[in-house]
């Protein structure tokens, strides 16, 4: 009998965890964070509007990540703070 190592090894704790999804959207404020991928804003804003129409939420903020930021970077701190203050949930992350 031989022993070999599994090649993947132990995990570190994730640096961030997602907040739990709100059970009811009525009355909540939806934010759209455009990651600047082609058509991302169009796709996500339409999705936000449809969700708002169906649930009684409202689209409160549509923004990009800030000057000089793009799809491969986190958003700027001022934009993050603005989202934190002004909306209850955020739609983001359209890919190519």
């Amino acid at each position, binding site marked *: *009998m*031989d*022993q*070999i*190592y*599994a*090649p*993947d*090894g*132990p*995990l*570190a*704790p*994730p*640096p961030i965890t997602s907040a739990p999804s709100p059970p009811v959207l009525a009355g909540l404020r939806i934010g759209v964070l455009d990651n*600047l991928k*082609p058509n991302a804003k169009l796709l996500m804003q339409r999705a936000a509007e449809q969700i708002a129409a169906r649930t009684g939420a409202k689209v409160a903020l549509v923004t990009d990540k800030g*000057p*000089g930021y*793009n*799809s*491969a*970077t986190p958003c700027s701190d001022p934009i993050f703070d603005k989202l934190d203050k002004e909306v209850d949930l955020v739609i983001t992350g359209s*890919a*190519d």
Partner: protein
Amino acid sequence: MTQGYELLDVVDASPEAMYELFEERGWGDGLPLVPPTSARVDALLEGCGGDPDEVLAVLPPRFGKATRRMVAVNAALAGCKPDYMPVLIAATRALGEKKLNLRGVNATTHCVAPLLIVHGEIAERAGFNSGLGAFGPGNRANATTGRALRLILLHIAGAVPGPGDASTQGGPAKYSYCVAENTAASPWGSFHRSAGVDSASAITLHCGEAPHNFHDMESDHPSRILDKCASVMATLGQNNATIAQGEYFVALGPEHAATCASAGWSRRDVSSYLFQMARLPARVFRAQFDLRAWFPWMHGVADDELLPMTGEVDHIKVFVCGGAGKHSSVVPSWGMTSSVTLPIE
């Protein structure tokens, strides 16, 4: 489980059985692997120094802990010798540097792969190929060290095509991508010292495309050679095209480098010339791309003015690599990443 490491009991450690086991588990790069037994891993760790379980980097998207031991496990799988371990340890640390943006490198649909460049004394001592065919097959150090780095990405980082690596087409550089700098043939000394790393040996990680060749068989002046390099750089299909932070690594063949140096050109002169010559009219970029990750000053340039392919001279990095012949190459980056040069301890 021991300290988070999983040891598997295997009845049959034959190459065929290992190949089957790894395929069943979704591990490996598709090629046969050397079983990472405790004896092999211990042998690789023996000359490393340091705590085998020290976390060198946490690698996304899986957030696996890259310790010396796990680096050794993947080095064993790839067929590395102990002499290569210092290179892999430094390269693993480089993967964890924020400016390299490994999460983006693994998440993108682009074909990017980290190019590992080995500098200084260790390249010769451990037998890395910096000469003829350096980017190609036939040398154990280059092949297995580059492969081990990819296995680290596949296993520890979880950069498995699909769930952890979104590359549309992948690329051959994702199997193994390691060369050594030909310092002996470099008229400008070692690259790492010019990058401010004062050590006998070092590594650079540059996350880029596979090498784009350029050749010039006849010129005896740098400008005609480097004009061809500039024309390779000034293409619209590469990811760097409208990303001002994008870098280019120019791997000059020794003969091209000698022509530049004999005309009195420094490494910096080569970069400056390429910054001036690798340009396109601003209107071309504007016509071709809606999304332009330019520096602010670039947005104000008039349509008929020429814009450089990158935002700064220092984004064009020059090192010497290869053997006899009149070929050189350019490795454009993925764009949203910056290279890392670290000493080998």
